[in-house]
């Protein structure tokens, strides 16, 4: 028998019962099994028994189930929403995870062992001992072009992604560029098409060959997918039309960065009268703070 600590033994050490972290053990085992399969076939969508969670489906229930299935009392969890640690959704989920598992919580990227994120990848490079969990609203990358799930599955089985290429061609021919902004489809290991969750193109280009595992959970569609460390991830682009990251009009007003992913302050909640007039600032709040503290 291995002496490696189990979640149950760690939980016992911390005075917690085995069935902790909101989900019952059977559910967590089911999610972990699905994650193991997902890691074995990078980018492939694996079904799992998605449970009702105390957040609405589509609000991170998939990412939450993945995180709660992994978390142990010695973990430190960070939850971000569009790069921000302090949004209502992110703070609520961080609080739920830490209170039901007894783990520590943080907003500092380097301190976290599990980082659950909605629509961003932290800009501070993650280490091999960290895990990134992405919340995915629509795990099927062919959803826009193949409406029938069964037909989409056939395309995946045959690795025939002509409908996605055709959609891309049509965008290039009629609009001069892909119309897909966030959630740009990616080819994992050159074979499997995957939805990377609605991260910006800036992050799509940073998804591949990372030392950490990336786990993607879609609660509403009951699917998980995974990218093991150092997996090749390339956006679906023509050889002569590279994918361009979003550009910001100005440097970050707080840290002065010119190469971070920046949004206009106020974001989607800004008043219509101020749209297009607000200052630009980094989307990743922790990376921006780090740059300000250690310029």
């Amino acid at each position, binding site marked *: 028998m291995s002496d490696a600590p189990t979640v149950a033994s760690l939980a016992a050490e911390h005075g917690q019962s085995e069935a902790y972290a909101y989900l019952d053990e059977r559910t967590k085992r089911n999610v972990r099994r699905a994650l193991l399969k997902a890691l074995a076939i990078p980018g492939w969508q694996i079904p799992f028994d998605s449970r009702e969670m105390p957040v609405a489906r589509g609000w991170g229930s998939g990412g939450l189930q993945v995180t709660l299935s992994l978390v142990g009392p010695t973990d430190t969890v960070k939850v971000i929403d569009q790069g921000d640690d302090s949004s209502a959704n992110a703070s609520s989920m961080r609080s739920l995870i830490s209170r039901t598992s007894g783990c520590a919580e943080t907003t500092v990227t380097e301190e976290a062992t599990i980082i659950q994120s909605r629509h961003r990848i932290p800009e501070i490079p993650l280490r091999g001992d960290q895990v990134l969990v992405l919340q995915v609203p629509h795990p099927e990358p062919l959803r826009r072009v193949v409406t029938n799930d069964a037909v989409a599955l056939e395309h995946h089985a045959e690795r025939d992604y*002509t409908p996605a290429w*055709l959609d891309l*061609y049509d965008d290039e*021919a*009629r609009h001069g560029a892909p119309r897909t902004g966030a959630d740009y489809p990616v080819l994992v290991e050159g074979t499997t098409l995957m939805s990377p969750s609605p991260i910006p193109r800036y992050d799509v280009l940073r998804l591949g060959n990372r030392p950490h595992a990336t786990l993607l959970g879609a609660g509403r569609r009951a699917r998980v997918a995974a990218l093991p460390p150092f997996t090749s991830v390339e956006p679906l682009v023509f*050889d*002569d*039309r590279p994918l361009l990251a979003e550009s910001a009009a100005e440097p970050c007003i707080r840290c002065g960065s010119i190469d971070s992913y920046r949004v206009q302050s106020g974001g989607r909640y800004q008043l219509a009268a101020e749209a297009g007039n607000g200052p630009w600032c980094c989307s990743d709040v922790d990376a921006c703070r780090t740059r300000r503290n250690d310029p």
Partner: protein
Amino acid sequence: MNPTSTAQAAAAQSAAAHAPAAGPTAAAQVLPPPPLLSARGLSRRFGPGCDLCIELTGDAGATSRCPACGTVVAVHDVSFDVGAGEVLGIVGESGSGKTTLLSLLHLDTPADAGSMVVDGYGDLLRSRTSDAELRRSAVVMVHQNSLAAGLAPRLAAESNVAERLLRTGCRSFAEARARSQDLLAELGIHPSRHTDPLETFSGGMAQRVQLARALVNPPRVLLLDEPTTGLDPSVQADLLESVQRVTDRLGSATVVVSHDLEVIRILADRVLVIHFGRVVEDGIPEQVFDDPQHPYTQLLVASRLR
């Protein structure tokens, strides 16, 4: 003309074409190139079948449905060769087996017997390559109805054409675009309409788009199913002229099925007349239409003149 003897003659001709040169005299002769498509004994029945099916159908029984068991002998023992750049026309009345023959050639319907050798691919009916793969490069069909061909009405015309290139692994946008647009222009679609959605196109123009899609990856065998049905005469003539020009240039073997004898006369280098699932006459169009031998062909030609 006896269809069996037609098949034997065609087989003998094909064997002669493939035979090694026997001596100086033979070597001096210019052998015809091997056919791109060589069909032998293609047959297809729908029903349980019995020993009397062949005997009681065809000209003998004046039906393609076996009176003993009810089986429909849709296609029986059809053989022909089509060379590079050659156009074979198939004519016959509704229910004569034209469409079944075309669907056998397009691998949509499995044949009961026979072989279909395509140059470079072997016998497609026994190929280990998937039918879908063969339909991308070996045999391509232009359907009567452009929507039945799987064209996407919401996508641009050139995207519908480029789809065939993308499917076969072309990953250069510039190359896919140049090839699609060149072919569309060659087929008479004005460049200003290349990026318009296909749903805004007329029937004749949609048919051209379908033809461009079929030809953008030049197939070995091009199958045209009633290519001009539903189009007005001026558009028909224009389309046929485009088909002729492009197929001449690409050198595919073309099989065209039509009710319209005029279409066959314009396009085809040779004609097969099908009746009750059998080939009842074949030859060059002038010979078949000006001096028909079989009673059915005589009726067909006479009906056209009436």
